[in-house]
């Protein structure tokens, strides 16, 4: 419980409408998609950088932990107020400030929902490619803070590849601008990239300048089924090796297909053991050629079905398979640990084989799907937490999955971040020197450790 004196000052900053301390509010700002829960002492909804600056100055004076939060849809607990303090919600800052069609840039506030932004730029024939699965509800501020990815990352890259500049309130309250809106710019350190993916530990993002692309002329969606998981995995590396970069290359293993099929009866061939959903976009003639080339390349790899969508409706139908994955998984077991390892694309077949071994060793269902085209696999370890010993087993299996990714030159997280969920595993990937460098940055910007404390780096 915060002292009345502090609450009064916070109220004075944001107004009584925009501060909440009731038990119901604290509960509802204490969770995210990790299924962890920590109750804050208070929730504030500031309207911009000025108010946030004053909140953070107060926080420094009173040594008050502050936890920035967007939609609260993260998978690693980045927005959770562990240890208590103030949750700072950015969703009132939800304006698209401008879309500059002369320079193909846009400036937005952090609370804008990703899909709402995409719809607006697409009206002008422009394109903002990052498409995290949560795009209908997650905010752009959260996307930048976590450096969200998505299926289209194979060709277009992730959120940070589209951020040109930011307005950030530093943990000590100063409002700074980083980067800008020019294509080139090398003056000073690249603080923009530093803030992207910093998980709310280095500053509160209050404005974002994005670069945009012209909206692609056309796209083509293909659903391909293989008779072995290895065939599908090799198809990924074969396509890339032959210098075709699809927009998306989504992978689903046999366990995933079984889940989807059991519930939705999509009529997959019995011999199918893995699926790749492939999409190419760009110039109409070029993608025709690419689709044909892809078919030729993957044919010898145990292809049992190759379907091409004729139009947008059919494309949507093919994507349905992928979208049905998440609701189907619960049939395997009630609790899911969704990890998002990445390996170099040529190592996708190797990491899939390693995971199969881990699955057998621990005798727990592991369901794999995801953005294989960029080497990013969603490894879902399915358990029932109420069964004694399962949780411990899952923990050990996760550790081995991470180790497999690291052994193959990959990383333990491609897009979900570290937050609280992956914090215990950090020493597996980062050595003491790396951690020391990162802590030096954190210490320099947040000397009193008030902004999202206890996250990401090992304590």
């Amino acid at each position, binding site marked *: 419980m915060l002292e009345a004196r502090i609450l009064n000052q916070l109220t004075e900053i944001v107004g009584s409408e925009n501060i*909440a301390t*009731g*038990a*119901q*509010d604290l*509960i*509802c*700002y204490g*969770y*995210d*998609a990790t*299924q962890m*829960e920590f109750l804050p002492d208070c929730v504030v*909804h500031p309207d911009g950088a000025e108010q946030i600056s004053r909140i953070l100055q107060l926080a420094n004076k009173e040594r008050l932990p502050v936890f920035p939060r967007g*939609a*609260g*849809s993260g998978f690693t607990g980045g927005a959770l107020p562990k240890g208590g303090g103030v949750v700072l919600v950015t*969703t*009132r800052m939800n304006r698209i400030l401008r879309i500059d069609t002369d320079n193909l840039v846009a400036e937005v506030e952090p609370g804008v*929902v990703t*899909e709402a932004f995409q719809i607006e730029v697409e009206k002008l024939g422009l394109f903002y490619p990052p498409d995290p699965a*949560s795009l*209908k*509800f*997650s905010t752009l501020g959260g996307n930048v803070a976590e450096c969200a990815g998505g299926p289209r990352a194979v060709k277009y890259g992730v959120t940070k590849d589209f951020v040109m500049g930011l307005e950030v309130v530093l943990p000590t309250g100063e409002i700074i601008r980083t980067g800008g809106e020019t294509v080139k710019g090398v003056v000073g350190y690249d603080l923009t990239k530093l803030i992207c993916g910093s998980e709310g530990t280095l500053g509160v993002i209050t404005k974002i300048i994005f670069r945009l692309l012209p909206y692609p002329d056309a796209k083509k969606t293909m659903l391909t089924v293989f008779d072995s998981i290895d065939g599908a995995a090799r198809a990924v590396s074969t396509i890339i090796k032959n210098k075709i970069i699809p927009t998306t290359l989504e992978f689903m293993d046999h366990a995933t297909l079984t889940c989807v099929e059991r519930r939705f009866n999509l009529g997959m061939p019995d011999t199918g053991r893995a699926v790749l959903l492939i999409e190419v976009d760009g110039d109409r003639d070029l993608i025709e050629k690419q689709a044909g080339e892809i078919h030729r390349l993957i044919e010898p790899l145990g292809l049992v079905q190759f379907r091409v969508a004729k139009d947008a409706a059919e494309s949507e139908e093919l994507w349905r398979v992928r979208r049905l994955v*998440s*609701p189907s998984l*619960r049939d395997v077991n*009630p609790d*899911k640990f969704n990890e998002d390892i990445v390996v170099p694309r040529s190592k996708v077949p190797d990491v899939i084989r390693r995971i199969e071994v881990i699955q057998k060793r621990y005798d727990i269902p592991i369901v794999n799907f995801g953005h294989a085209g960029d080497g990013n696999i969603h490894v879902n370890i399915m358990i029932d937490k109420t069964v004694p010993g399962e949780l411990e087993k899952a923990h050990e299996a996760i550790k081995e999955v991470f180790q497999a990714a690291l052994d193959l030159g990959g990383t333990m997280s491609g897009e979900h971040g570290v937050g609280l969920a992956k914090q215990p595993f950090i020493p597996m990937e980062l050595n003491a020197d790396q951690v020391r460098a990162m802590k030096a940055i954190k210490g320099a910007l947040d000397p009193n450790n008030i902004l999202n404390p206890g996250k990401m780096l090992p304590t």
Partner: protein
Amino acid sequence: MTRKQTSPLERVANEMKKCVKCGACRANCPAFGTFQREPATARGKVALAQHLMKGDITLDDGTYAAMSKCLLCGSCVDKCPNQVPTDEIVIAAREALAQKRGLTTFHKAVGQVIRHRKVMNLGALAAAVLGPIFFRKVPATSGLRLRFPMPFLGASRHVPQIAKKPFMKRHPEVIKGEPGKPTIVFFVGCMTNFVYTEIGEATLALFRHLGCTVIIPQGQQCCGLPGMSGGDLNTVRELAEQNLAALEKYPADYVMTACATCGGALHKLYPLVIGKRNPELRERLQALADKTVDAAVLLQKLGLSPQETGSGAPLSITYHDPCHHRTAGIAKQPRELLTGTPGLELVEMEGADRCCGLGGTFNVYHYESSLDINAGKSAAIRATGADVVVTGCPGCIMQLSDGLKQAGDKTRVLHTVELLARKIRR
């Protein structure tokens, strides 16, 4: 006592576990759309219900306020990756609140009125209690303009006038049709019986046109949905049993209603909340649910083919999906009936299946927010340029009319059956 208090939530305890707090409901919940605060989301309400069960929050004003911010429209359920039935969870939480705190004055009054059809018929208590909703006329520029200085309602809303003679008073119980044609029991519903009697007349005309025998059982009551909205499940149970008895009395091929909300009660709510400990009752309610069919769906099934009767310019229409239709999978049938009718041109609006904002009694407690949700609806309707907005629920008709009139718009709001009835050859 404690046992009794927690039992409604225990009913949905397993369903609550399915919620992984992913946040997908933020994209679809109309209440969150207007309040913009997390306790208004579906996952927020599930979290609160879970904490209620654990006992770390109580059924206090804060919980009451959070649980009141739900239209029970079911949008969150449709789009939830795990199909968490938040509507059922909110109903259970409201029942728990009602058990613990007693009903609010307003909901007590609602319960009194809807339990007593005779009283409603007499109009005395109805006038006193539903006064804020239906009665007090202002010096009329039109007979439909009413004004409400009562505490429950804002001052500026437009509400339709109550009918001089209820629909059910105008017709005999059994209206014989042609031999060999289906027999239909007509569940009228309060809005149609007391306010929009023209919907009842149109429905009757259409089924008589098809040669059906129509039975309007006199013992039928309010469906109970307004009571459920406030957590008054006892009233719902009482009414369900009375309705069951009245509707079972005549052997019929179908139980038909022209009100999406009443249909939702008969079809989904009754089997859900009633008869958990009484298998025989449960079975009868399920049989009733299985027989219940929406007027538009049945008209299509029985092969209604409206003819062009008049001449003149085609009428441009747009269609609003009532939530209780959306959740029952009714969307295609009324559209096919309407577009199959000569002289009608359907222009789809943006977000036709988004809630109108009425949400049972949500609209009484959160009138401003209800209007805010409705404003988006009105804008979508206006953008189509349609002459008439058509829908299948008298509740939606009231809300849509209110919104459009407040926006100074002249678009008419009609029930599907009203439009169709004008097109049949008499």
